[in-house]
């Protein structure tokens, strides 16, 4: 006869399952951190209520329970200090973190027997991300969103993010209580000048992308010009190719057409597109001056 009463048996089973999930999580964390991740968090797949229909974890993977978020591959301090902005275009991409997500997905499927899908880093035909990885990162406690857009980890500042969705239920993290942005320095600066470092460098009223007001230590009325940001972030990339192509096809003057095709803007765009098959961020100026990130990159 069993020494355990039915209720106790269920309780023991629950404890064992919980302990198994903690062990699995630790295994995944260990692989992630040993492979270069700086940030690891798990979001509850059912908490993506702010995401639009069709862009929630279970829309990508039916039965999704957890969204694992990894962050890392941040530009090195030297990358930020370099005098040529083009340097960052070639050294900073999210492919290393996406590759790591693929490794974790494989491990979850092969070792633990649950479905796992790495969120593709690109966009769908409507130019929307398949899953908002920034939202996932916030729900997983990996950082908080900045006025400029990127998630800022309190410890590591700006990091590239990747995410994977799985039917494996893991112990979840919670969103952070304290927002990283605006930083105390930014609140000080705003109170004095009505701008912060990021809204000073890329101010929407001065031909940039960003605007907002700080009230009670928090951002309000955030304004972000997506199309303007696209012209900077994808400066030499697919949008430029499309625009120059259109302009060139409309050009009747053969000499002018030749100038346009061989222009530095179009040539560099073609080079950028052939460097790699991954999306390259090509503007970092709002984050370059961000005090939250800046304090993570001070060296001699």
């Amino acid at each position, binding site marked *: 006869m069993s020494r355990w009463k039915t209720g106790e048996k269920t309780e023991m089973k629950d404890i064992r399952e919980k302990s198994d999930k903690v062990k699995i999580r630790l295994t995944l964390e260990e692989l992630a951190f040993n492979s270069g991740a700086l940030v690891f968090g798990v979001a509850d797949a059912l908490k993506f209520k702010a995401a639009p229909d069709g862009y929630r974890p279970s829309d990508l993977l039916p039965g999704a329970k957890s969204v694992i978020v990894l962050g890392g591959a941040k530009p090195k301090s030297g990358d930020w200090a370099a005098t040529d902005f083009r340097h960052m275009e070639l050294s900073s991409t999210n492919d290393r973190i996406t590759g790591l997500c693929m490794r974790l997905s494989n491990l979850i499927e092969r070792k633990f027997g649950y479905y796992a899908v790495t969120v593709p880093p690109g966009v769908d035909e409507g130019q929307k991300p398949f899953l908002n990885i920034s939202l996932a990162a*916030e729900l997983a406690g990996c950082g908080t969103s900045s006025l400029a857009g990127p998630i800022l980890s309190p410890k590591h500042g700006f990091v590239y993010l990747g995410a994977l969705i799985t039917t494996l239920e893991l112990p979840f993290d919670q969103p952070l209580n304290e927002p990283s942005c605006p930083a105390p320095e930014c609140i000080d600066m705003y109170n004095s000048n009505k701008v912060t470092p990021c809204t000073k460098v890329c101010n929407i009223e001065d031909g940039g992308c960003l605007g907002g007001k700080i009230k009670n230590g928090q951002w309000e009325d955030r304004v972000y010009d997506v199309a303007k940001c696209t012209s900077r972030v994808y400066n030499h990339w697919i949008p430029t190719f499309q625009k120059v192509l259109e302009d060139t096809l409309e050009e009747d003057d053969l000499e002018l057409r030749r100038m346009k095709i061989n222009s530095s803007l179009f040539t560099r765009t073609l080079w950028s597109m052939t460097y790699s098959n991954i999306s390259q961020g090509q503007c970092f100026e709002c984050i370059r001056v961000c005090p939250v990130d800046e304090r993570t990159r001070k060296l001699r």
Partner: protein
Amino acid sequence: MREPESCDEANMNYYIDPEVYKKYKEQILEMSQSVQINYAENIPPEKRKPGFSDQQIGEKLGLDPSVVREIRCVAERDYYTLDEWQKAIEFKDQACREYAVKGVSSVTKKYLLKRKAKD
């Protein structure tokens, strides 16, 4: 509300009929919040203005969501001329070089001087 304009009615193969595009472009850009104001998903629901989805815009304008999506994608690309792409190079070059020399004070200098004077 009239019946949604389908892809065929809008003469859409892989592209949209230019007349349909011109007719709805501005409305769709505005409704989808091309310039985002309080758009982000972390903003409390009562303050958040996420813009309408292609589906919602389609329902309001009587268009098929795929037609809305196509108009929105082309309009977002059309929004700025090529000059803006050329200007972006100058903007980044200047911002990066100033940072390399002065660090964050490239944007905070006046503020710091003001604060120093105050202290």
